[in-house]
């Protein structure tokens, strides 16, 4: 193989790496550098080392944002994955001609820009006249909930928005994965049990674990990166008593509401350890599940 053919692969990969360096690596290095300098907005900043990181460890609001983000992430996962599995099963039972229609409808929220979705959700979450109150709360005798101002419900509102956005998308992935499961495994299981739960537990779920891992990672990263949805609903703040304050919201506040770019950069860098912990947990769980000898 001549030199050009041997090294053509680098040429093909070059665009990716150029973009990677320009839009990921360079900003990352710039951000880390910014986190080591003072918050001075105008003029030369001075080197402050790890001062911002130290201040974060003493900042109660920062830990509130971490807690809220963790609750938001886990609540979203806890709702989206089981519901998606349920919907995927239901969708598989739908007539083949109707299935694409339902799939498209379910994909729509995921294809909608988050800011647009949040604007729509303003109608849903509107205190007294909102759809949620008028359809699901008031008819059942409940008092209207101020979803975006009551600190007991703000985070729930963000979770509901996330569930609505991703439920269809994740269902779509799961349906595709379910359709790739070889029928022979179901036929083999039928010899021992005809229970639907056993089919799900011993065949469907193990075959879906790769896709479930992908969905888990996807949803965790999206939860940590959520900004536009929370920004439109809560205006860049965390809402009453910081009930909806997420890591990205707090980073934004520090950068643009308070002009503390150094502090905000430190917060951005600190997202990585939290995210890595959660992702490590996912992969650890996946490896244990696989190691127990799951089929597929």
């Amino acid at each position, binding site marked *: 193989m001549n030199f050009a053919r041997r090294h053509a692969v680098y040429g093909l990969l070059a665009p990716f790496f150029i973009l990677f360096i320009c839009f990921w690596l360079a900003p990352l290095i710039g951000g880390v550098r910014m986190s080591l300098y003072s*918050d*001075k*907005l*105008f*003029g030369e900043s001075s080197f402050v080392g790890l001062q911002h990181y130290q201040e974060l460890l003493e900042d*109660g*609001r920062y830990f509130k944002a971490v807690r809220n983000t963790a609750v938001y992430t886990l609540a979203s996962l806890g709702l989206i994955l089981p519901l998606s599995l349920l919907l995927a099963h239901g969708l598989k039972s739908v007539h083949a001609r109707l299935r694409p229609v339902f799939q498209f409808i379910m994909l729509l929220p995921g294809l909608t820009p988050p800011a647009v979705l949040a604007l729509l959700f*303003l109608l849903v979450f*509107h*205190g*007294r*006249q909102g759809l949620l109150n008028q359809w699901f709360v008031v008819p059942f005798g409940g008092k209207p909930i*101020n979803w*975006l*101002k*009551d*600190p007991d419900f703000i985070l729930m509102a963000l979770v509901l928005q996330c569930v609505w956005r991703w439920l269809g998308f994740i269902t779509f992935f799961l349906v595709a994965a379910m359709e790739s499961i070889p029928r022979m495994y179901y036929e083999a299981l039928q010899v021992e049990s005809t229970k639907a739960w056993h089919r799900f537990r011993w065949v469907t779920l193990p075959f879906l674990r790769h896709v479930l891992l992908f969905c888990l990672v996807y949803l965790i990263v999206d939860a940590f990166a959520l900004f536009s949805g929370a920004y439109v609903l*809560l*205006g*860049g*703040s*965390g*809402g*009453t*008593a*910081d009930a909806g304050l997420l890591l990205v919201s707090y980073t934004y*506040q520090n*950068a*643009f*509401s*308070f*002009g503390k*770019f150094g502090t905000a950069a430190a917060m951005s860098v600190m997202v990585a350890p939290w995210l890595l912990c959660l992702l490590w947990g996912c992969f650890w769980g996946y490896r244990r599940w696989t190691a127990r000898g799951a089929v597929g």
Partner: protein
Amino acid sequence: MNLFTKLHSVVQMFGAAALLAAGSAVAAEPVNLWISSFQDKTYYEKMVKEYQAKVDSEFKADIQAFGFREMPDKLAIAIKTGTNPPDIVQLDEVLFGTYLADEVPFVNLAERVQKAELDKGIVPQRLKLFAKGDAIYGLPQSLSAMVLYYRTDLFKEHGIDPEDISTWDDFVDTGRELAKKNQALIALDPTYFEILLRQKGADWFDRAGRMFPDEAEAESVMNWLYMLNDEGIGLIPERASIFDPVFFSSMVNYGEVLSIIGADWYGLDMIQQFSPELKGKWGVMPLPAWKDRFGVPGRRTSTFAGQGLLIYKNSKKIEEAWKFIEWVMKNTDANVERFVGGNSFPAYQPAWKDERLHQPNAYFSNQKFGDLLTQLAPEVPEVVMHSKRPQAVFLFQENFFSSVMYGQISPKETIRQMRTMLKE
């Protein structure tokens, strides 16, 4: 002529040509003007044309409008990175404090203001708005005097005479009567805390930089606002903001509240823009007064927010920018246009002599809005500027207001937590 001389002449010619080109390139570049609202963009585009026609036909401006919340974000990035910053920026005074923490990125206009005698023309309390010590970094566009906007039709329907409401005690008594009929008298907004506190003569910070210097007054205002909400005299908008368009399409249009505290620009710009169908159904009156401990009523206005014009320190067109700002601030027609165009009432006193500022306003029931504002002008309090004021306003508005209103947190605890958050 020897070769060296010929070469020297050629080099000189090229040098001169290059200088000319550079000079004309700088002269041809427009002044970049960043505006905080799309409505104001229309005004400044008109002003640029007027300025070109009357003062400097070579003047060019590139005006960009951003949303009120978006502009500070872009400005902060531009200043931090030094990339494409504006020459002139229209910035709200609430956000100005962000730039006071360290070196101020705007030109000190104090000498220029004195030379142009703008210090004699602009309402003194407003001149100190964009200032730090003796330095003046910006000029205020509006008087920003707080008034009480009220629904004349609904007041009449409920038998309320605005002349009977001269103090907040009168206001509460009227409100209690209305509350019996499940009618709220006023919309409640987080900004009212600062407005009413300032009306009482206190503020977020004092000149020494202490937060909540008059803690008792701060607590009493929060308790008073809580009382209004609790007794049904006041109603909090769905998103707890009287600046949200949804507030106008719901609470205002359905008559769920009969009055709103707002500045001149609030009525001229927001109420007229978002409730055009209520033309002729609004009236304006001074704020009811607080009584002091001797029972003597105090000032009948306050102030909050208001845009100003500032020049970026590293701008290459400082003189051009200043000349334009000076003209906009001093030109009578420019000042009148701000008011009649539905923007704000000017802070430049010599312009007040113009009759056009004192005409009946059809939207506000043919009241002479300008007359009321000029009467209230001497009572407009000063704002004590502090680098943490933007944070204080933001935190109270977003974190604490609703909790205080619903009794989830006491005013004392709010003050304590805010001091901790702002490390004061």
